[in-house]
Protein backbone atom coordinates (compact mmCIF):
# COMPACT_ATOMS: atom_id res chain seq x y z
CA UNK A 1 0.00 0.00 0.00
CA UNK A 2 1.16 3.49 -0.81
CA UNK A 3 1.70 5.17 2.56
CA UNK A 4 1.58 8.65 1.01
CA UNK A 5 -2.21 8.34 0.85
CA UNK A 6 -2.43 7.93 4.63
CA UNK A 7 -2.07 10.23 7.59
CA UNK A 8 -0.10 8.65 10.42
CA UNK A 9 -1.83 9.23 13.80
CA UNK A 10 0.44 7.07 15.91
CA UNK A 11 2.94 4.29 15.36
CA UNK A 12 0.11 1.79 14.73
CA UNK A 13 -2.81 3.94 13.53
CA UNK A 14 -3.21 5.35 10.04
CA UNK A 15 -6.03 7.48 8.75
CA UNK A 16 -7.61 8.21 5.37
CA UNK A 17 -9.33 11.56 5.67
CA UNK A 18 -12.74 11.65 3.99
CA UNK A 19 -12.79 12.54 0.31
CA UNK A 20 -15.39 12.19 -2.41
CA UNK A 21 -18.39 10.28 -1.12
CA UNK A 22 -16.76 9.11 2.12
CA UNK A 23 -18.96 9.99 5.11
CA UNK A 24 -16.33 9.15 7.76
CA UNK A 25 -12.55 8.60 7.78
CA UNK A 26 -10.89 5.26 7.16
CA UNK A 27 -8.66 3.97 9.96
CA UNK A 28 -6.11 1.18 9.54
CA UNK A 29 -4.37 -0.28 12.59
CA UNK A 30 -1.01 -1.79 11.62
CA UNK A 31 2.72 -1.42 11.84
CA UNK A 32 4.41 0.34 8.96
CA UNK A 33 5.86 -2.97 7.78
CA UNK A 34 2.45 -4.71 7.70
CA UNK A 35 0.86 -1.72 6.03
CA UNK A 36 3.45 -1.71 3.26
CA UNK A 37 2.62 -5.36 2.55
CA UNK A 38 -1.12 -4.74 2.45
CA UNK A 39 -2.79 -4.85 -0.93
CA UNK A 40 -3.98 -1.51 -2.32
CA UNK A 41 -7.39 -3.17 -2.50
CA UNK A 42 -7.60 -2.86 1.30
CA UNK A 43 -7.31 0.92 0.95
CA UNK A 44 -9.97 0.93 -1.75
CA UNK A 45 -12.30 -1.27 0.29
CA UNK A 46 -11.83 0.70 3.53
CA UNK A 47 -12.73 3.92 1.69
CA UNK A 48 -15.70 2.27 -0.07
CA UNK A 49 -17.17 1.08 3.24
CA UNK A 50 -16.83 4.67 4.53
CA UNK A 51 -19.35 5.70 1.83
CA UNK A 52 -22.20 3.52 3.12
CA UNK A 53 -25.29 5.21 4.64
CA UNK A 54 -25.42 5.61 8.42
CA UNK A 55 -21.81 4.57 9.11
CA UNK A 56 -20.61 5.84 12.50
CA UNK A 57 -17.15 7.15 13.49
CA UNK A 58 -14.94 5.42 10.91
CA UNK A 59 -14.41 2.47 8.57
CA UNK A 60 -11.79 0.35 10.33
CA UNK A 61 -9.25 -2.24 9.19
CA UNK A 62 -7.42 -4.57 11.56
CA UNK A 63 -3.68 -5.42 11.28
CA UNK A 64 -4.47 -8.67 9.39
CA UNK A 65 -6.61 -6.89 6.78
CA UNK A 66 -6.55 -8.25 3.27
CA UNK A 67 -8.55 -8.02 0.07
CA UNK A 68 -12.06 -9.30 0.75
CA UNK A 69 -15.46 -8.88 -0.87
CA UNK A 70 -16.73 -5.33 -0.59
CA UNK A 71 -15.50 -5.07 2.97
CA UNK A 72 -11.86 -5.94 3.54
CA UNK A 73 -11.32 -9.12 5.54
CA UNK A 74 -10.32 -7.60 8.84
CA UNK A 75 -12.91 -4.83 8.42
CA UNK A 76 -15.10 -3.32 11.14
CA UNK A 77 -17.94 -0.85 10.59
CA UNK A 78 -20.89 0.19 12.75
CA UNK A 79 -24.16 1.61 11.48
CA UNK A 80 -26.82 3.67 13.22
CA UNK A 81 -30.42 2.76 12.33
CA UNK A 82 -31.50 6.29 13.34
CA UNK A 83 -29.22 7.71 10.65
CA UNK A 84 -30.45 5.49 7.82
CA UNK A 85 -27.82 2.87 8.68
CA UNK A 86 -27.53 -0.33 6.69
CA UNK A 87 -26.89 -4.01 7.26
CA UNK A 88 -24.65 -5.61 4.64
CA UNK A 89 -24.50 -9.26 3.64
CA UNK A 90 -21.09 -8.49 2.11
CA UNK A 91 -20.03 -6.95 5.42
CA UNK A 92 -20.61 -10.24 7.20
CA UNK A 93 -19.37 -12.55 4.48
CA UNK A 94 -20.28 -16.02 3.23
CA UNK A 95 -19.10 -17.99 6.22
CA UNK A 96 -21.42 -16.38 8.74
CA UNK A 97 -20.19 -16.66 12.34
CA UNK A 98 -17.01 -18.44 11.37
CA UNK A 99 -15.02 -18.44 14.57
CA UNK A 100 -12.61 -20.06 16.95
CA UNK A 101 -13.18 -21.85 20.23
CA UNK A 102 -10.48 -23.02 22.58
CA UNK A 103 -10.84 -25.86 25.08
CA UNK A 104 -8.65 -26.62 28.06
CA UNK A 105 -7.57 -30.25 28.42
CA UNK A 106 -6.05 -30.35 31.92
CA UNK A 107 -3.07 -32.06 30.24
CA UNK A 108 0.57 -31.09 29.96
CA UNK A 109 2.68 -31.44 26.85
CA UNK A 110 4.45 -34.49 28.32
CA UNK A 111 1.09 -36.28 28.74
CA UNK A 112 0.40 -35.99 25.02
CA UNK A 113 3.81 -36.85 23.59
CA UNK A 114 3.68 -40.70 23.92
CA UNK A 115 0.17 -40.81 22.37
CA UNK A 116 0.62 -38.08 19.82
CA UNK A 117 0.32 -40.17 16.67
CA UNK A 118 -2.60 -42.18 17.99
CA UNK A 119 -4.35 -38.99 19.09
CA UNK A 120 -3.85 -37.43 15.64
CA UNK A 121 -5.21 -40.51 13.87
CA UNK A 122 -8.18 -40.90 16.21
CA UNK A 123 -9.12 -37.23 15.95
CA UNK A 124 -8.82 -37.39 12.17
CA UNK A 125 -11.14 -40.37 12.14
CA UNK A 126 -13.67 -38.76 14.51
CA UNK A 127 -13.81 -35.22 13.11
CA UNK A 128 -15.46 -34.97 9.67
CA UNK A 129 -13.09 -32.76 7.66
CA UNK A 130 -12.86 -31.64 4.06
CA UNK A 131 -15.19 -31.51 1.08
CA UNK A 132 -17.75 -34.31 0.92
CA UNK A 133 -17.52 -35.26 4.59
CA UNK A 134 -20.85 -35.56 6.39
CA UNK A 135 -21.83 -35.27 10.01
CA UNK A 136 -23.13 -38.06 12.21
CA UNK A 137 -26.57 -36.47 12.53
CA UNK A 138 -29.06 -35.55 9.87
CA UNK A 139 -31.55 -32.80 10.63
CA UNK A 140 -35.14 -32.95 9.43
CA UNK A 141 -37.23 -29.78 9.08
CA UNK A 142 -38.47 -29.35 12.66
CA UNK A 143 -35.07 -30.13 14.20
CA UNK A 144 -33.39 -27.79 11.72
CA UNK A 145 -35.58 -24.87 12.82
CA UNK A 146 -35.02 -25.72 16.49
CA UNK A 147 -31.25 -25.74 15.88
CA UNK A 148 -31.41 -22.39 14.03
CA UNK A 149 -33.31 -20.83 16.94
CA UNK A 150 -31.31 -22.46 19.74
CA UNK A 151 -27.66 -22.54 18.60
CA UNK A 152 -25.32 -24.13 21.13
CA UNK A 153 -28.25 -24.33 23.60
CA UNK A 154 -29.98 -26.68 21.18
CA UNK A 155 -26.80 -28.73 20.83
CA UNK A 156 -26.41 -29.07 24.60
CA UNK A 157 -30.08 -30.12 24.86
CA UNK A 158 -29.31 -32.83 22.30
CA UNK A 159 -26.50 -34.13 24.48
CA UNK A 160 -23.57 -32.39 22.77
CA UNK A 161 -21.52 -30.85 25.54
CA UNK A 162 -22.49 -29.37 28.86
CA UNK A 163 -24.62 -26.48 30.06
CA UNK A 164 -21.51 -24.91 31.62
CA UNK A 165 -20.12 -24.46 28.09
CA UNK A 166 -22.80 -21.93 27.25
CA UNK A 167 -21.60 -19.02 29.39
CA UNK A 168 -18.24 -19.26 27.63
CA UNK A 169 -19.80 -18.57 24.23
CA UNK A 170 -20.68 -15.11 22.90
CA UNK A 171 -24.40 -14.42 23.36
CA UNK A 172 -24.49 -17.24 25.91
CA UNK A 173 -24.51 -19.71 23.02
CA UNK A 174 -27.80 -18.56 21.52
CA UNK A 175 -28.18 -15.55 19.22
CA UNK A 176 -31.48 -13.85 19.89
CA UNK A 177 -33.64 -12.68 17.01
CA UNK A 178 -33.00 -15.66 14.76
CA UNK A 179 -35.86 -16.23 12.32
CA UNK A 180 -35.58 -19.64 10.63
CA UNK A 181 -38.53 -18.75 8.35
CA UNK A 182 -36.13 -16.34 6.57
CA UNK A 183 -33.70 -19.18 5.84
CA UNK A 184 -34.47 -20.67 2.42
CA UNK A 185 -35.19 -24.33 1.87
CA UNK A 186 -32.04 -24.43 -0.28
CA UNK A 187 -29.92 -23.20 2.63
CA UNK A 188 -31.47 -25.76 4.94
CA UNK A 189 -30.97 -28.53 2.38
CA UNK A 190 -27.32 -27.59 2.03
CA UNK A 191 -26.94 -27.97 5.81
CA UNK A 192 -28.89 -31.18 6.30
CA UNK A 193 -25.84 -33.48 6.38
CA UNK A 194 -23.25 -30.92 7.49
CA UNK A 195 -23.88 -30.54 11.23
CA UNK A 196 -20.71 -31.31 13.14
CA UNK A 197 -18.36 -30.97 10.18
CA UNK A 198 -15.21 -28.87 10.01
CA UNK A 199 -15.40 -27.81 6.36
CA UNK A 200 -12.32 -27.10 4.25
CA UNK A 201 -10.03 -24.21 3.30
CA UNK A 202 -8.55 -22.53 6.35
CA UNK A 203 -10.69 -24.45 8.85
CA UNK A 204 -8.99 -26.75 11.32
CA UNK A 205 -8.92 -28.46 14.67
CA UNK A 206 -5.59 -28.11 16.46
CA UNK A 207 -4.09 -29.60 19.57
CA UNK A 208 -1.76 -26.89 20.83
CA UNK A 209 0.63 -26.21 23.68
CA UNK A 210 1.01 -22.95 25.55
CA UNK A 211 4.57 -21.72 24.98
CA UNK A 212 4.58 -18.18 26.38
CA UNK A 213 2.59 -16.04 28.77
CA UNK A 214 2.66 -12.25 28.40
CA UNK A 215 0.07 -11.15 30.97
CA UNK A 216 0.25 -13.41 34.01
CA UNK A 217 -2.84 -12.12 35.81
CA UNK A 218 -5.09 -12.40 32.78
CA UNK A 219 -3.61 -15.80 31.87
CA UNK A 220 -4.42 -16.98 35.40
CA UNK A 221 -8.01 -15.78 35.00
CA UNK A 222 -8.20 -17.62 31.66
CA UNK A 223 -6.64 -20.69 33.28
CA UNK A 224 -3.60 -21.11 31.00
CA UNK A 225 0.08 -21.58 31.86
CA UNK A 226 3.18 -22.63 29.89
CA UNK A 227 3.18 -26.31 28.91
CA UNK A 228 -0.61 -26.62 29.07
CA UNK A 229 -2.29 -28.44 26.19
CA UNK A 230 -5.38 -26.85 24.66
CA UNK A 231 -7.57 -27.65 21.64
CA UNK A 232 -8.72 -24.96 19.21
CA UNK A 233 -11.46 -25.41 16.63
CA UNK A 234 -11.84 -23.01 13.70
CA UNK A 235 -14.97 -23.38 11.57
CA UNK A 236 -18.27 -21.73 10.79
CA UNK A 237 -21.86 -22.12 9.66
CA UNK A 238 -21.06 -24.50 6.80
CA UNK A 239 -23.35 -24.75 3.76
CA UNK A 240 -26.25 -22.99 5.44
CA UNK A 241 -24.28 -19.80 6.04
CA UNK A 242 -22.76 -19.89 2.56
CA UNK A 243 -26.17 -20.20 0.93
CA UNK A 244 -27.70 -17.41 3.06
CA UNK A 245 -24.74 -15.17 2.16
CA UNK A 246 -25.15 -15.98 -1.55
CA UNK A 247 -28.91 -15.38 -1.61
CA UNK A 248 -29.00 -12.16 0.41
CA UNK A 249 -26.01 -10.67 -1.39
CA UNK A 250 -27.97 -11.09 -4.62
CA UNK A 251 -31.20 -9.68 -3.19
CA UNK A 252 -29.34 -6.68 -1.74
CA UNK A 253 -27.49 -5.98 -5.01
CA UNK A 254 -30.76 -5.95 -6.93
CA UNK A 255 -32.76 -3.94 -4.39
CA UNK A 256 -30.10 -1.31 -3.53
CA UNK A 257 -31.20 1.26 -6.17
CA UNK A 258 -34.81 0.93 -4.93
CA UNK A 259 -33.60 1.91 -1.46
CA UNK A 260 -31.73 4.87 -2.94
CA UNK A 261 -28.34 3.27 -2.21
CA UNK A 262 -25.67 3.90 -4.82
CA UNK A 263 -23.16 1.09 -4.24
CA UNK A 264 -19.51 1.97 -4.89
CA UNK A 265 -18.93 -1.79 -5.36
CA UNK A 266 -21.64 -4.42 -5.86
CA UNK A 267 -20.09 -6.61 -3.24
CA UNK A 268 -20.98 -3.94 -0.65
CA UNK A 269 -24.60 -4.95 -1.17
CA UNK A 270 -26.68 -3.75 1.76
CA UNK A 271 -30.17 -2.73 2.80
CA UNK A 272 -31.43 -0.25 5.37
CA UNK A 273 -31.63 -1.86 8.82
CA UNK A 274 -35.18 -0.57 9.01
CA UNK A 275 -36.39 -2.19 5.80
CA UNK A 276 -38.13 -5.51 5.20
CA UNK A 277 -35.04 -6.88 3.42
CA UNK A 278 -32.72 -5.68 6.18
CA UNK A 279 -34.89 -7.35 8.80
CA UNK A 280 -35.21 -10.56 6.74
CA UNK A 281 -31.42 -10.73 6.46
CA UNK A 282 -30.92 -10.16 10.19
CA UNK A 283 -33.35 -13.03 10.93
CA UNK A 284 -31.54 -15.34 8.54
CA UNK A 285 -28.02 -14.23 9.51
CA UNK A 286 -28.75 -14.73 13.21
CA UNK A 287 -30.02 -18.23 12.40
CA UNK A 288 -26.68 -18.89 10.70
CA UNK A 289 -24.84 -17.62 13.80
CA UNK A 290 -26.76 -20.25 15.80
CA UNK A 291 -25.87 -22.87 13.20
CA UNK A 292 -22.16 -22.07 13.63
CA UNK A 293 -22.41 -22.15 17.43
CA UNK A 294 -24.23 -25.51 17.30
CA UNK A 295 -21.66 -26.83 14.84
CA UNK A 296 -18.70 -25.93 17.04
CA UNK A 297 -20.57 -27.38 20.02
CA UNK A 298 -21.00 -30.75 18.25
CA UNK A 299 -17.34 -30.77 17.21
CA UNK A 300 -16.45 -30.08 20.84
CA UNK A 301 -18.43 -33.13 21.90
CA UNK A 302 -16.65 -35.31 19.31
CA UNK A 303 -13.28 -34.00 20.51
CA UNK A 304 -14.10 -34.73 24.13
CA UNK A 305 -15.07 -38.28 23.24
CA UNK A 306 -11.68 -38.89 21.63
CA UNK A 307 -9.79 -37.41 24.57
CA UNK A 308 -11.78 -39.36 27.17
CA UNK A 309 -11.05 -42.55 25.23
CA UNK A 310 -7.30 -42.03 24.89
CA UNK A 311 -6.53 -39.80 27.86
CA UNK A 312 -9.16 -40.55 30.49
CA UNK A 313 -7.60 -38.12 32.96
CA UNK A 314 -8.31 -35.19 30.63
CA UNK A 315 -11.13 -32.67 31.13
CA UNK A 316 -12.03 -30.29 28.32
CA UNK A 317 -13.96 -27.29 29.64
CA UNK A 318 -14.45 -24.42 27.22
CA UNK A 319 -12.11 -21.45 27.61
CA UNK A 320 -14.11 -19.31 25.16
CA UNK A 321 -15.79 -19.22 21.75
CA UNK A 322 -15.53 -16.19 19.44
CA UNK A 323 -17.20 -15.51 16.10
CA UNK A 324 -15.36 -13.37 13.57
CA UNK A 325 -17.90 -12.89 10.74
CA UNK A 326 -20.96 -11.23 12.22
CA UNK A 327 -23.24 -8.23 12.51
CA UNK A 328 -24.45 -7.65 16.06
CA UNK A 329 -26.49 -5.00 17.83
CA UNK A 330 -24.32 -3.50 20.55
CA UNK A 331 -24.49 -0.56 22.91
CA UNK A 332 -21.45 1.53 22.05
CA UNK A 333 -20.39 4.91 23.33
CA UNK A 334 -20.40 7.56 20.60
CA UNK A 335 -19.45 11.14 21.50
CA UNK A 336 -19.90 10.24 25.17
CA UNK A 337 -23.43 8.89 24.73
CA UNK A 338 -24.59 5.24 24.57
CA UNK A 339 -25.93 4.27 21.17
CA UNK A 340 -27.41 1.05 19.77
CA UNK A 341 -25.33 0.26 16.71
CA UNK A 342 -25.18 -2.60 14.21
CA UNK A 343 -21.51 -3.56 14.33
CA UNK A 344 -20.19 -5.54 11.34
CA UNK A 345 -17.04 -7.55 11.95
CA UNK A 346 -15.77 -9.28 8.84
CA UNK A 347 -12.71 -11.31 9.71
CA UNK A 348 -12.47 -9.38 12.97
CA UNK A 349 -12.96 -10.57 16.54
CA UNK A 350 -15.06 -8.90 19.19
CA UNK A 351 -12.72 -7.76 21.98
CA UNK A 352 -14.79 -6.42 24.85
CA UNK A 353 -12.86 -4.93 27.72
CA UNK A 354 -12.98 -5.72 31.45
CA UNK A 355 -16.26 -5.02 33.17
CA UNK A 356 -18.38 -5.41 30.05
CA UNK A 357 -21.83 -6.73 31.08
CA UNK A 358 -21.86 -9.24 28.17
CA UNK A 359 -18.89 -11.14 29.64
CA UNK A 360 -19.44 -14.09 31.99
CA UNK A 361 -18.73 -13.40 35.66
CA UNK A 362 -15.58 -15.54 35.69
CA UNK A 363 -13.99 -13.47 32.90
CA UNK A 364 -15.48 -10.05 33.54
CA UNK A 365 -12.47 -8.71 35.45
CA UNK A 366 -9.96 -9.97 32.92
CA UNK A 367 -11.67 -8.92 29.67
CA UNK A 368 -12.92 -11.04 26.80
CA UNK A 369 -10.62 -13.76 25.47
CA UNK A 370 -9.73 -12.96 21.86
CA UNK A 371 -8.71 -16.15 20.05
CA UNK A 372 -6.38 -15.62 17.10
CA UNK A 373 -5.80 -18.52 14.72
CA UNK A 374 -2.50 -19.00 12.98
CA UNK A 375 -1.86 -21.39 10.11
CA UNK A 376 -0.68 -24.99 10.36
CA UNK A 377 2.95 -24.45 11.23
CA UNK A 378 2.68 -21.16 13.05
CA UNK A 379 1.61 -19.90 16.42
CA UNK A 380 -1.88 -19.01 17.55
CA UNK A 381 -2.51 -16.42 20.25
CA UNK A 382 -4.88 -15.67 23.07
CA UNK A 383 -5.42 -11.95 23.62
CA UNK A 384 -7.81 -10.09 25.87
CA UNK A 385 -10.04 -7.10 25.27
CA UNK A 386 -8.97 -3.99 27.20
CA UNK A 387 -10.72 -0.84 28.33
CA UNK A 388 -8.86 0.97 25.57
CA UNK A 389 -10.07 -1.48 22.91
CA UNK A 390 -13.62 -0.20 23.36
CA UNK A 391 -12.39 3.24 22.23
CA UNK A 392 -10.41 2.04 19.21
CA UNK A 393 -12.74 0.13 16.88
CA UNK A 394 -15.90 -0.59 18.89
CA UNK A 395 -14.13 -3.30 20.89
CA UNK A 396 -12.66 -5.27 17.96
CA UNK A 397 -9.34 -6.90 17.15
CA UNK A 398 -7.75 -9.01 14.41
CA UNK A 399 -8.82 -12.63 13.73
CA UNK A 400 -5.82 -14.44 12.32
CA UNK A 401 -2.65 -13.94 10.43
CA UNK A 402 -4.36 -13.17 7.12
CA UNK A 403 -3.19 -14.47 3.78
CA UNK A 404 -0.09 -12.96 2.27
CA UNK A 405 -0.46 -14.62 -1.13
CA UNK A 406 -3.11 -16.25 -3.29
CA UNK A 407 -3.86 -19.99 -3.31
CA UNK A 408 -2.71 -19.89 -6.90
CA UNK A 409 0.74 -18.66 -5.87
CA UNK A 410 0.88 -21.04 -2.89
CA UNK A 411 0.30 -24.01 -5.21
CA UNK A 412 3.27 -22.91 -7.30
CA UNK A 413 5.46 -22.55 -4.22
CA UNK A 414 4.63 -25.66 -2.22
CA UNK A 415 3.78 -29.32 -2.52
CA UNK A 416 1.33 -30.69 0.06
CA UNK A 417 3.37 -33.80 0.86
CA UNK A 418 6.51 -31.73 1.45
CA UNK A 419 4.64 -29.35 3.73
CA UNK A 420 3.35 -32.29 5.82
CA UNK A 421 6.84 -33.85 6.01
CA UNK A 422 8.53 -30.59 6.90
CA UNK A 423 6.05 -29.92 9.70
CA UNK A 424 6.38 -33.52 10.96
CA UNK A 425 10.12 -32.84 11.20
CA UNK A 426 9.26 -29.98 13.55
CA UNK A 427 7.00 -32.25 15.61
CA UNK A 428 3.70 -31.02 14.16
CA UNK A 429 1.43 -33.78 12.87
CA UNK A 430 -0.90 -32.81 10.02
CA UNK A 431 -3.88 -34.92 9.05
CA UNK A 432 -5.84 -33.80 5.99
CA UNK A 433 -7.85 -35.43 3.22
CA UNK A 434 -6.33 -33.08 0.66
CA UNK A 435 -2.67 -32.73 -0.24
CA UNK A 436 -3.46 -29.82 -2.56
CA UNK A 437 -5.50 -28.20 0.22
CA UNK A 438 -2.45 -28.41 2.49
CA UNK A 439 -0.26 -26.79 -0.19
CA UNK A 440 -2.77 -23.96 -0.67
CA UNK A 441 -2.79 -23.45 3.11
CA UNK A 442 0.99 -23.71 3.56
CA UNK A 443 2.18 -21.65 6.55
CA UNK A 444 4.30 -19.50 4.23
CA UNK A 445 1.18 -18.34 2.38
CA UNK A 446 0.14 -16.39 5.45
CA UNK A 447 1.36 -13.16 6.99
CA UNK A 448 3.56 -13.39 10.04
CA UNK A 449 1.00 -13.91 12.82
CA UNK A 450 3.51 -12.63 15.40
CA UNK A 451 3.70 -9.27 13.61
CA UNK A 452 -0.10 -9.09 13.30
CA UNK A 453 -0.65 -9.81 16.99
CA UNK A 454 2.09 -7.38 18.06
CA UNK A 455 0.40 -4.67 16.00
CA UNK A 456 -2.98 -5.44 17.60
CA UNK A 457 -1.36 -5.27 21.04
CA UNK A 458 0.56 -2.06 20.39
CA UNK A 459 -2.41 -0.40 18.73
CA UNK A 460 -4.43 -1.07 21.89
CA UNK A 461 -7.01 -3.27 20.14
CA UNK A 462 -6.39 -6.13 22.60
CA UNK A 463 -3.53 -7.20 24.84
CA UNK A 464 -1.34 -10.27 24.35
CA UNK A 465 -1.96 -12.98 26.94
CA UNK A 466 -0.56 -16.28 25.64
CA UNK A 467 1.12 -17.84 22.66
CA UNK A 468 0.20 -21.34 21.44
CA UNK A 469 2.07 -23.69 19.14
CA UNK A 470 0.47 -26.52 17.19
CA UNK A 471 1.16 -30.16 18.05
CA UNK A 472 -1.53 -31.79 15.90
CA UNK A 473 -3.58 -30.18 13.13
CA UNK A 474 -6.67 -31.76 11.56
CA UNK A 475 -7.03 -29.74 8.38
CA UNK A 476 -10.28 -29.54 6.42
Amino acid at each position, binding site marked *: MDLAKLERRSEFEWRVMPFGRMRVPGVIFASEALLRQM*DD*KVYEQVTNVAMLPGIVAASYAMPDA*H*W*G*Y*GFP*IGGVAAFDPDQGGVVSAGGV*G*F*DISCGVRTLHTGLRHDDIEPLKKQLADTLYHAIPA*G*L*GSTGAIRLEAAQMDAMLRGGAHWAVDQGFGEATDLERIEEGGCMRGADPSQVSE*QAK*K*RQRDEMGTL*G*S*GNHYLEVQQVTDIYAADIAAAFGVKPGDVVVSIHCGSR*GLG*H*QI*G*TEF*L*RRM*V*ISAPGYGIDLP*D*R*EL*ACAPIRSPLGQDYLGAMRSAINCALANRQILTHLTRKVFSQLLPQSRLPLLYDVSHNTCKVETQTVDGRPKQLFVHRKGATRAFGPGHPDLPAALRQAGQPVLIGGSMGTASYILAGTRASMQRAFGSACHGSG*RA*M*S*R*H*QALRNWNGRHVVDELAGRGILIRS*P*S*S*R*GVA*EEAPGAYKDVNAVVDSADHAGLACKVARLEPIICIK*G
Partner: protein
Amino acid sequence: MSAERWEHFPHEADMGVRGLGATLERAFEQAALALTAVVTDPATVTPLERVSLACEAPDTELVFVDWLNALVYEMATRSMLFSRFEVRLQGHRLSAKAWGEALDIARHHPAVEVKGATYTALKVALQPDGAWLAQCVVDV
Protein backbone atom coordinates in the same frame (compact mmCIF):
# COMPACT_ATOMS: atom_id res chain seq x y z
CA MET B 1 -10.22 -15.78 -32.58
CA SER B 2 -8.78 -17.49 -29.53
CA ALA B 3 -9.85 -21.00 -28.66
CA GLU B 4 -12.16 -21.84 -25.81
CA ARG B 5 -10.31 -22.07 -22.55
CA TRP B 6 -10.53 -21.50 -18.82
CA GLU B 7 -8.05 -20.19 -16.31
CA HIS B 8 -7.71 -19.17 -12.70
CA PHE B 9 -6.63 -15.70 -11.71
CA PRO B 10 -5.25 -14.78 -8.29
CA HIS B 11 -7.17 -13.22 -5.45
CA GLU B 12 -5.40 -12.68 -2.14
CA ALA B 13 -7.62 -14.98 -0.07
CA ASP B 14 -9.52 -16.94 -2.67
CA MET B 15 -9.58 -17.84 -6.34
CA GLY B 16 -10.71 -16.16 -9.55
CA VAL B 17 -12.40 -18.24 -12.25
CA ARG B 18 -12.38 -17.13 -15.87
CA GLY B 19 -13.87 -18.63 -19.02
CA LEU B 20 -13.19 -17.55 -22.59
CA GLY B 21 -15.12 -18.59 -25.69
CA ALA B 22 -16.45 -17.54 -29.05
CA THR B 23 -19.89 -16.92 -27.57
CA LEU B 24 -21.22 -15.96 -24.16
CA GLU B 25 -22.51 -19.50 -23.70
CA ARG B 26 -19.10 -21.05 -24.40
CA ALA B 27 -17.43 -18.57 -22.02
CA PHE B 28 -19.93 -19.51 -19.29
CA GLU B 29 -19.23 -23.22 -19.90
CA GLN B 30 -15.48 -22.68 -19.67
CA ALA B 31 -15.86 -20.69 -16.46
CA ALA B 32 -17.81 -23.63 -15.02
CA LEU B 33 -14.83 -25.86 -15.81
CA ALA B 34 -12.61 -23.36 -13.99
CA LEU B 35 -15.00 -23.67 -11.03
CA THR B 36 -14.60 -27.46 -11.00
CA ALA B 37 -10.83 -27.00 -11.26
CA VAL B 38 -10.85 -25.06 -7.98
CA VAL B 39 -11.87 -28.35 -6.38
CA THR B 40 -10.19 -30.98 -8.53
CA ASP B 41 -8.67 -31.70 -11.94
CA PRO B 42 -11.71 -31.67 -14.28
CA ALA B 43 -10.08 -34.47 -16.33
CA THR B 44 -10.70 -36.85 -13.39
CA VAL B 45 -14.46 -36.19 -13.42
CA THR B 46 -16.44 -38.55 -15.67
CA PRO B 47 -19.56 -36.98 -17.19
CA LEU B 48 -21.90 -39.82 -16.21
CA GLU B 49 -24.97 -38.19 -14.77
CA ARG B 50 -26.88 -35.21 -16.14
CA VAL B 51 -28.37 -32.38 -14.06
CA SER B 52 -30.53 -29.56 -15.46
CA LEU B 53 -30.23 -26.02 -14.15
CA ALA B 54 -31.96 -22.72 -14.86
CA CYS B 55 -31.58 -19.17 -13.62
CA GLU B 56 -32.58 -15.65 -14.50
CA ALA B 57 -31.32 -12.24 -13.37
CA PRO B 58 -31.64 -8.55 -14.30
CA ASP B 59 -28.33 -8.40 -16.20
CA THR B 60 -25.79 -10.70 -17.84
CA GLU B 61 -23.17 -10.37 -15.10
CA LEU B 62 -25.69 -11.32 -12.43
CA VAL B 63 -26.80 -14.28 -14.57
CA PHE B 64 -23.17 -15.41 -14.67
CA VAL B 65 -22.86 -15.34 -10.86
CA ASP B 66 -26.24 -17.09 -10.58
CA TRP B 67 -25.00 -19.79 -12.95
CA LEU B 68 -21.90 -20.50 -10.89
CA ASN B 69 -23.91 -20.40 -7.67
CA ALA B 70 -26.45 -22.85 -9.12
CA LEU B 71 -23.52 -25.20 -9.79
CA VAL B 72 -22.10 -24.65 -6.29
CA TYR B 73 -25.50 -25.58 -4.88
CA GLU B 74 -25.79 -28.74 -7.00
CA MET B 75 -22.22 -29.74 -6.12
CA ALA B 76 -22.96 -29.29 -2.41
CA THR B 77 -26.39 -30.89 -2.16
CA ARG B 78 -25.80 -33.77 -4.61
CA SER B 79 -22.18 -34.24 -3.54
CA MET B 80 -21.21 -34.22 -7.21
CA LEU B 81 -18.53 -32.73 -9.43
CA PHE B 82 -19.19 -31.67 -13.03
CA SER B 83 -16.96 -31.74 -16.08
CA ARG B 84 -19.19 -31.12 -19.11
CA PHE B 85 -21.59 -28.24 -19.58
CA GLU B 86 -24.11 -27.04 -22.13
CA VAL B 87 -25.40 -23.51 -21.60
CA ARG B 88 -28.19 -21.70 -23.42
CA LEU B 89 -28.87 -18.03 -22.93
CA GLN B 90 -32.00 -16.22 -24.01
CA GLY B 91 -31.63 -12.64 -22.94
CA HIS B 92 -30.96 -12.82 -19.21
CA ARG B 93 -32.46 -16.27 -18.85
CA LEU B 94 -30.10 -19.22 -18.67
CA SER B 95 -30.86 -22.89 -19.01
CA ALA B 96 -28.13 -25.48 -18.82
CA LYS B 97 -27.20 -29.08 -18.51
CA ALA B 98 -24.23 -30.23 -16.49
CA TRP B 99 -22.76 -33.73 -16.59
CA GLY B 100 -20.68 -35.19 -13.84
CA GLU B 101 -20.40 -37.86 -11.19
CA ALA B 102 -20.54 -38.40 -7.45
CA LEU B 103 -17.60 -36.97 -5.54
CA ASP B 104 -15.09 -39.72 -4.80
CA ILE B 105 -12.68 -38.41 -2.17
CA ALA B 106 -10.04 -41.08 -2.90
CA ARG B 107 -10.02 -40.37 -6.63
CA HIS B 108 -10.79 -36.65 -6.85
CA HIS B 109 -8.66 -35.51 -3.87
CA PRO B 110 -10.84 -32.40 -3.47
CA ALA B 111 -8.64 -29.44 -2.53
CA VAL B 112 -11.27 -27.16 -1.13
CA GLU B 113 -14.99 -26.53 -1.02
CA VAL B 114 -16.43 -23.53 -2.87
CA LYS B 115 -18.69 -21.49 -0.58
CA GLY B 116 -20.11 -19.26 -3.28
CA ALA B 117 -19.44 -17.11 -6.35
CA THR B 118 -19.00 -13.42 -5.57
CA TYR B 119 -19.40 -10.07 -7.37
CA THR B 120 -15.70 -9.38 -6.89
CA ALA B 121 -13.71 -8.92 -10.12
CA LEU B 122 -16.98 -9.77 -11.88
CA LYS B 123 -16.83 -9.12 -15.60
CA VAL B 124 -18.68 -10.43 -18.62
CA ALA B 125 -17.40 -8.71 -21.76
CA LEU B 126 -16.44 -9.04 -25.39
CA GLN B 127 -12.66 -8.90 -25.71
CA PRO B 128 -10.79 -6.94 -28.42
CA ASP B 129 -9.86 -10.28 -30.06
CA GLY B 130 -13.55 -11.13 -30.48
CA ALA B 131 -13.72 -13.68 -27.66
CA TRP B 132 -16.20 -13.45 -24.80
CA LEU B 133 -14.83 -13.39 -21.29
CA ALA B 134 -16.76 -14.28 -18.13
CA GLN B 135 -15.06 -14.10 -14.72
CA CYS B 136 -15.47 -13.54 -10.99
CA VAL B 137 -13.84 -14.51 -7.70
CA VAL B 138 -15.22 -17.50 -5.83
CA ASP B 139 -15.05 -17.74 -2.04
CA VAL B 140 -13.41 -20.91 -0.77
